[in-house]
């Protein structure tokens, strides 16, 4: 049997929750004050997920980078795969909020989308015309 200790994030109480596990089966959840705590703990020990936010390099834009996020939450253990894949991605301005930056990141089935806009840099736009 395995026990996991968590801190609930649903409210400032921050209950310390203990989950007892037998392999993948949850035996007990203790320490929570409300139902939300139990739900959180069950999800956290069986299928923890996070929305990942980071930046991606931009060429020809008014900023060097654009903020991006996974459109939905992805498994927690895929966070670093996601960020590493995005290290090799470079996008060209202009970029609008919601543009898909990378599809199916780290084989999660989730797309990474732009969370900010970057306009074309005036100088860069000029050089394209030339």
């Amino acid at each position, binding site marked *: 049997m395995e026990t996991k200790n*968590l*801190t*609930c*994030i649903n*409210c*400032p*109480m*921050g209950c310390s929750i203990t989950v007892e596990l037998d392999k993948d089966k949850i035996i007990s959840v203790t320490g929570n*004050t409300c139902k939300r705590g139990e739900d959180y703990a069950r999800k956290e020990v069986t299928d923890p997920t*996070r*929305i*990942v*936010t*980071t*930046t991606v*390099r931009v060429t020809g834009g008014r*900023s*060097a*980078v654009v*903020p991006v*996020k996974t459109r939905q939450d992805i498994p*927690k253990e895929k*966070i*670093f795969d996601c*960020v590493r894949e995005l290290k090799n991605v470079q996008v060209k301005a202009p970029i609008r*909020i919601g543009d898909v930056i990378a599809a199916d990141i780290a084989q999660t089935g989730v797309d990474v989308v732009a*969370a*900010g*806009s970057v306009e074309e840099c005036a100088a860069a736009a000029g050089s394209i015309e030339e």
Partner: protein
Amino acid sequence: MREYDIVIIGGGPAGLAAAVSARENGIESILILERDDRLGGILNQCIHNGFGLHTFQEELTGPEYADRYIRQAKQLEIEYKLNTMVMDIRPDRTVTAMNKTDGVFTIRAGAVILAMGCRERARGALNIPGYRPAGIFSAGTAQRLVNIEGYMPGREVVILGSGDIGLIMARRMTLEGAHVKAVAELMPYSGGLKRNIVQCLDDYGIPLKLSHTVVDIKGRERVEGVTLAEVDQNSKPIPGTEEDYPCDTLLLSVGLIPENELSRGMGAVMDPATSGPKVNESLETSIDGVFACGNVLHVHDLVDHVSKEAAAAGRNAAAYVKGSRTVKNGGGKAILLTAASGVRYTVPSTVRPEQMEDSLTVRFRVDNVYRGRCISVYFDQERVSRRKRPVMAPGEMEEIVLTKEQILGCPELETIRITVEDE
């Protein structure tokens, strides 16, 4: 001299929400003056998610939250000037500003809304001994370097202060390949949101060292390491508890201070507890027709609260311009709002019953972590409400709502007192 009905100083979340609200309340002539080269303020560099749960019932990143308001402002054709620094505001609401295209110019404003936000406490405010090597950044500066400029400030990092920006940067630097060795917090509790401690530190195995501080910074040219030590109840380092952390970077997340040079220059009465101007129920400062909202008034932890507060400032400034208010600034009966035992401050600090909207949200912070206590409200000697709070912390803003009916029902009322009490 150009004239506007309302001039808003700052185009961040507070300024934008105030502008949108003033326009929706019938004011045509509005100008936002913004120092940066874009609207949105600090939200542009807060690329993490978690914004807007209250306002939009969804979780947005900072730039997305800002974009919602920027689009509204543009749709409403609200005028704004970027790259524009306001130099001075006179009590008669003459605003002097400058930028590269207009040079120095002055504007006469029917009403002014202060929305300049806040800035970070710097190393100078901390008295940490040692040389002044490169590699010491405020957490917000590091955030700007990484998220906007695309530079990494360092590889081996120690963070002092567990405010939300420090916690967020611990995760951000880790994702960018840095090794964050520890977050040290002087107090026995964190100043950040629980959620950030779990998702920014615990998720990545970064230790949070409560009751610890930096007692030495090593290195002359570049930071080579820092020494952390445990502190006693009086925040004094305990000899023998020193631990060395080799690192090339020290981030400071040690508090935010409202940016009120303009307010002080104008002669607005300040509140030492918030470092912001004192305001009445209309969020109007001691200067007639000058309103304040957002982090320049008091530091918030959720932008959703800033937007709400700023919308109220916009409505009140609109009413002021339209002359629909019955009581002048400084005139009429004012009830004092006071922070009693356990409460650090209240915003606003006075209430004029005649000028109140149907209800008034009073925001405040407690001075310590309290478990199983109550928030009580006293009208003079009489307790009028008492609400049980399982836990309260200085890092989480509290609020109570007063109704106009309730206050008009007590014509002799002089002082409203908010306090933390035992059950």
